[in-house]
């Protein structure tokens, strides 16, 4: 019989995990930026950098770490699933792993500007 067993629907979620991290990071940075500009965090300096910049860069760091964590987990799941004999599992796991990488790259590309652009003008 070609019909394989039931699997939990949560497996589908790994396909989205990387980009969910990206979405959260995107919303977090955009809102913190807006809040910081309203409260004048860019005027308050903390050594060579403004508080605004420090907070944003820290958030970017956390986001990249979270994205990297998803990449690691999906890679691990893929390795664990490899060669298990089912057509499905390597397929989904590989797709999830690719999506996680794409999301990590997207995080760096779309949020990376916090490193150098003017924050509040």
């Amino acid at each position, binding site marked *: 019989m070609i019909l394989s067993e039931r699997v939990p629907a949560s497996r589908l979620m790994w396909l989205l995990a990387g980009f969910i991290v990206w979405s959260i990071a995107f919303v977090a940075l955009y809102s913190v930026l807006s809040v910081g500009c309203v409260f004048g965090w860019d005027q308050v300096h903390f050594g060579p950098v403004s508080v605004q910049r420090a907070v944003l860069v820290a958030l970017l760091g956390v986001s990249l770490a979270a994205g990297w964590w998803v990449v690691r987990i999906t890679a691990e799941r893929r390795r664990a699933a490899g060669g298990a004999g089912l057509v499905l599992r390597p397929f989904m796991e590989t797709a999830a792993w690719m999506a996680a990488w794409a999301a990590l790259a997207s995080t760096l*590309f779309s949020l990376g*500007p916090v490193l*150098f*652009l*003017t924050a509040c*003008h």
Partner: protein
Amino acid sequence: MFWGSAALFVLVGALYALAWFRPAALARVSVGQWLVGGGLVMPSIVLVGLVGAAFVLGERLIPRPLEDPPLRVYAQAYQWDWRFGYDDDEATTSELHIPVGQPVDVVVTTEDVIHSFWVPRLAGKIDAIPGHENVLRIEADRPGAYRGVCAEFCGNGHTTMRFTLIAHAPEDYAAALAEARAEASR
């Protein structure tokens, strides 16, 4: 940007034509090469360059505080015309007067709905949002009259909500402005 786009368009077109008429020429390119080369590497290189250039240019254009604060003028939009004010006096003019050769900050506001301040030959545009003040930094190289329009749809008079910006040589500016004000109050 235009030539780059044209080149990319021709590239895709050529590949498409080749796939149709000479599939053998492309058969040796594997699917992975197609996807990674065309889908990932090529656009990534182009986009990084383009976005980087846009960021640099954008940084130059935004109205950041300067050491020597630029001249401020005020553009107030209403349905369906503009009035322009200046720092040193409450009188307004119906045409905007600025000096050439120096950056000028236009503070754009509105009395009613959303409008947008646009002088196509000088700079981009900035919207006039109710309850907010927006600043656009412009600079004219040459004296003369420049056409301006309202770029955001604002109702029945949107089409005719045009204005004129007049740039004067710095030495003539004060006199020209005084004359314009005198004319407006008459």
